[in-house]
Every structure is written in structure tokens, then in C-alpha cells.
């Protein structure tokens, strides 16, 4: 007898489907809002605020680590847009397998920056998210209510 989720009874499939949906909504919202808050300063959301915030982040990380400014700046300047994009993809269920993988990798990249500045609390939180992405990928074949589902042969 196989213990694969795919071979579980129908009741179990519902639970896996629900579990994945919860993870997808949570991670999608978290990722989208994490991107959105990068544009905020003093309660106002603007592109000027975005680049000010991201420059501050890049300089802060570079100032406290071995990472060069060109690397942190490039990462920081693309971070907000990627979080917004991946957040929408995950939330709407567009090619969830690849979008979850890419978003998870983005969180690993963020964790790497925090590892470089020894920000242990932040690393731990990002680690929790990465674990949730991994869990979501395990359940990705139960993806339902998705705009563009993956195919599983």
C-alpha cells in the first residue's frame, strides 16, 4: 500500500487541498504586503519612498557586512517589485509550483542578507516562511481554485 498523498482517500484529499489553499493565501498575502510596505514612508506610498527605503536597506546591509554595495543595491531595488509580482502569482494560483519555488528562493536570498549581518531574529522568521513554502510545495499537487494550474501527470 502506498502512503502517497495522491493515493489518499477523498476525505484526505480535501484536507490536503484545504491545507494548501491556506498556505497559498497566507504566503501570497504575506509576500504581496511585504512588497507593498517597501513603498511606504510616513504613511505615504510612493516610488520615491521605495528607492529611499531600499537604498537605506542596501547601505545598512553593506555597512554591517562583507556584501558589496552594488550587490545589495541591485537586490534591494528589485526586491519590492519581485515580492509584489510573486505575491500576486501565489495568491491567484498562477503556476503555483514555479511561483512558490521562486518566492521561496527570494526569501532564502533575504535570509542570506540577514545572515551576513547576523540578524538572528529576522533569519528565524524567514526560516519559518521558507519552511512554509517547502510545505506548500509538498502539497502543490492539491492546488485548486487557481487561475492557471500546474499539470501533474
Amino acid at each position, binding site marked *: 500500500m502506498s502512503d502517497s498523498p495522491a493515493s489518499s482517500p477523498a476525505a484526505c484529499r480535501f484536507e490536503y487541498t484545504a491545507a494548501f489553499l491556506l498556505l497559498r493565501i497566507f504566503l501570497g498575502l504575506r509576500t504581496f504586503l511585504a512588497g507593498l*510596505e*517597501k513603498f*511606504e*514612508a*510616513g*504613511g505615504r506610498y510612493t516610488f520615491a519612498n521605495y528607492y529611499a*527605503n531600499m537604498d*537605506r*536597506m*542596501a*547601505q*545598512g*546591509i553593506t*555597512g*554591517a557586512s562583507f556584501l558589496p554595495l552594488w550587490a545589495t543595491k541591485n537586490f534591494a531595488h528589485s526586491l519590492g517589485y519581485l515580492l509584489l509580482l510573486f505575491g500576486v502569482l501565489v495568491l491567484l494560483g498562477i503556476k503555483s509550483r514555479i511561483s512558490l519555488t521562486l518566492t521561496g528562493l527570494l526569501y532564502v536570498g533575504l535570509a542570506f*542578507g540577514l545572515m551576513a*549581518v547576523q*540578524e538572528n531574529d529576522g533569519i528565524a522568521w524567514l526560516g519559518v516562511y521558507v519552511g512554509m513554502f517547502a510545505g506548500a510545495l509538498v502539497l502543490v499537487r492539491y492546488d485548486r481554485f487557481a487561475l492557471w494550474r500546474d499539470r501533474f501527470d
Partner: protein
Amino acid sequence: MSSLSLPGFTRRDFITTGAKLSAALFAAPYILRSATGEPGGDDTLNVALIGCGEQGRVLLNAALKIPHIRFRAVCDIWPYNRTYGERLLKKFGHDPKPYEDYREMLASTPGLDAVIVATPDFMHSEHTCAALKAGHHVYCEKLMSNTVEGARAMVRTARETGKLLQIGHQRRSNPRYLHARDHLINEAHLLGRITNSSAQWNRAVTEDLGFPASQALAEATLHKYGYENMHEFRNWRWFKRYAGGVISDLGAHQIDVFNWMLGSNPVSVLAGGGRDYYTTHEWYDNVIAIYEYPTKDQIVRATYQVLTTTSAGGGYHEYFMGDEGALKMSENPKYTKLYREARAPEWDQWVDQGYIAKPGSGEGAPAAVKPWEKPRPKMPMASKAAGVVDVRETAELSAWDIPVTLDKAIHQPHLENFFDSIRGKTTLNCPGESALATAATVLRVNEAVAARKVLTFAPEDFTV
């Protein structure tokens, strides 16, 4: 091999010039500081110092940063202190003549404008009156005298001679204290109606001052100048014949702030205290007092505590509490804060005018943001009652900063005020008359401790 040698510039020249340049660089800070003591024109003041001990050195170091001051003489009965003062001044370009006896110094130093008195309290009156009578303006350390009569004599002599007498309650010249009193309390009325005050100085145990055995004064010399022995000479603050103990040594500064900030002298005092720890002292090592100050609004009760066996309990500060706000002052900015009661009118207009500031650090300040973090937006989700554990608690006070700091030695503005008053540019911040009232306020505490009952003041207690 290429050479960068200049015509006529030998290796010897190079070494000699290099050594001179190095010496000049090394000496630059001293030259720069001593330059401020050079006569800079007609407004250079010739000054002498009587008392080169602990406080005398503090005043010397503050005065050395003030331009157009020339020290002409130093006086101390102990050669060890006298030499220290003389050497310190010489290092900064002054050439003071040392004296053991102040009478000789006053008689043989021509052209003096002012005398700074930093001797033990029991000598303040004698030294100050003699200097005033010799025609000099006087800056005398606090407490003005160890007796009210001594303080009165100083005021009388200043009046008779027409010379200026400034007493060293230096908080009165601290720009942060001036801003708090003149703008925050008297102009903006941020405290509302002041109802209570408190102040404290909690200081950890300190060892008695010693002395190198080879530098001990002869018994005959000590007796000649009124000291019983070397231990009492070094630790005069804690003996009744020389000073008023902790309430005088530490309390005088803060009790003076009560009088000054409240614009009033007390009508009564109740006090307790004792010598319970230091077996080598005469005076109390802890004192707690309650004053009653009549103000235009009401009687303000002011509690004062000085402890010399613990630094716990918040260090040293003066607190003025009103029905709309509270002001916590200290010479140390880290203990300074302004608090707004929830019922008070908004203070934003005072922020806009630069009178106060939203806290940047410490109590009431937003959590520290790491260099790579974005400051978090305000989320006023918690209700005003959050954190209240009892229905009788009121809403939490909000903390604000006072955006005025002193960037000089703490005694420097007070000395500057004295010197500028001599030049006629301003008036004294702590003239003898005000300090007499403070001395009477402070010294009555020791009487109240001994009497174990409430003692009252009459208006004439504070005047000549």
C-alpha cells in the same frame, strides 16, 4: 635612483624640521587653549583662585576654556594642591604666583579683577569678604557659607563694597534649566498648575579622601588654619565645624533649584536623617526632607532625599509635577524628560516652535531601528487604557524631550555669566541675595533633623 632632495636641504635639516613640526603638532592643543588666556584687549580679566582642591580644579578647568581670562595667583594652604593648580595653569600659558595665605595674595597681587573662592564652606565668608573688601568681584562656591550669618555677612559686604558676588549654583546658568524655567514653565505653562516637587541625589558609597604621607601638613599648620587633623582637612564636608554635610554638599544644588524654579522660599521643613553608615564622619549620611513652598496657585510640597550609600533609585534629578505635565531635570541629560498628562492640551504647537521635541531616544522614543530597517509606521491600535492594571490608574504619561543641551563643562556658563557681569554685559544669575535664601533653606534641614519636628521659616530668615 631618483632623488627628491631640495637644494641646500640636508638630512640634518630634514630631521630638525621634522622634530620641530612634531613638537608643534604635539603642543598644538595646549597652545590653542592657552591662547584663550592671552590678553585679548581691554576686556581681559585678571583672576585669582583661593582653594586649589577638588572643586577648585573643576572651576579652573572650566575657566581655562573661557577667553580673555588671565590667572594671576593661586592660593592654597596645602602645597600639594597649590602646586597642582600652579602647574595646571602654567601648562595653559598662565603664570600665576602661588600663595599659602590669602591675605598675602590679596595684598601683593596688583590689578586683580576677580577672585574665585573654592575653599571649604566654613572659610567662604572670611575669604569672600576679604576679597570684596580688597576691591575684587567674587565667585564663591556653594554652599555660600556653613552658617546663615556667614552668608549674610557676604551679602552685606558685597553691598557695602559695590562689588559683584556670584555663588556657584551653576544650574541657574545651564541653558537647559533656563529654557525649562523661562519657556516651558513660565511661558508655555506646560506643567499646568504645579502641585508637587521632588528631588534626589542617590550616590554609592565613596571612600574617604586620603593623602600621601609625605605630603601631610604639620599639625601646627593645620591648627593655624582651623583644622583638627589631616583626615578632617581632607574630608571637611562631613564634619560639623567645616560644613553642613550631605544636605549642603549635594542637596544645596537641588534645593536651590526648588527655590529658583518655584520662584518662592519655603515656609516650613520637616526632616529625618542620621549617621548610620560612615563611622568616620560626623554629619548624617542620609537625609530626607519635606518643604512647603507657597506659590501663586497653592502650597507646593517638595520632598528631597540625599543618600550616600546607594546609587539605586534613579540617580540625581529634580522633578516638578503639575496637573498637566511634569518636568524631570538633571545636569545629566539622560535623566531629563518632560511628561504630558493625557488630560492636558496637545503639545504639538510647542514642537513646531522648537520648545520641546518628540523623543528621539530613551523613554517614550520609538523602538530603535537597525540601519537596514525601515522605520515602522505608527499603528495606534492600542487603546489608551492599555497597560492599566487597576481602575484607579490613570492613562500613561507621554514622554517628550527638551531640545536644549549644554555642550560645555557644567560650570563654564555660570563662570561666563560672572565674567560677563563684571564686563557689564549681563546680570548675575545667582547673586548673593538669592544664594543667601538657598543657604537658609538648606541649613534649616539639619536643624529639623536634630529637632525631630516641623520647623517654620519667617520671611526675614532669607534676607539680610
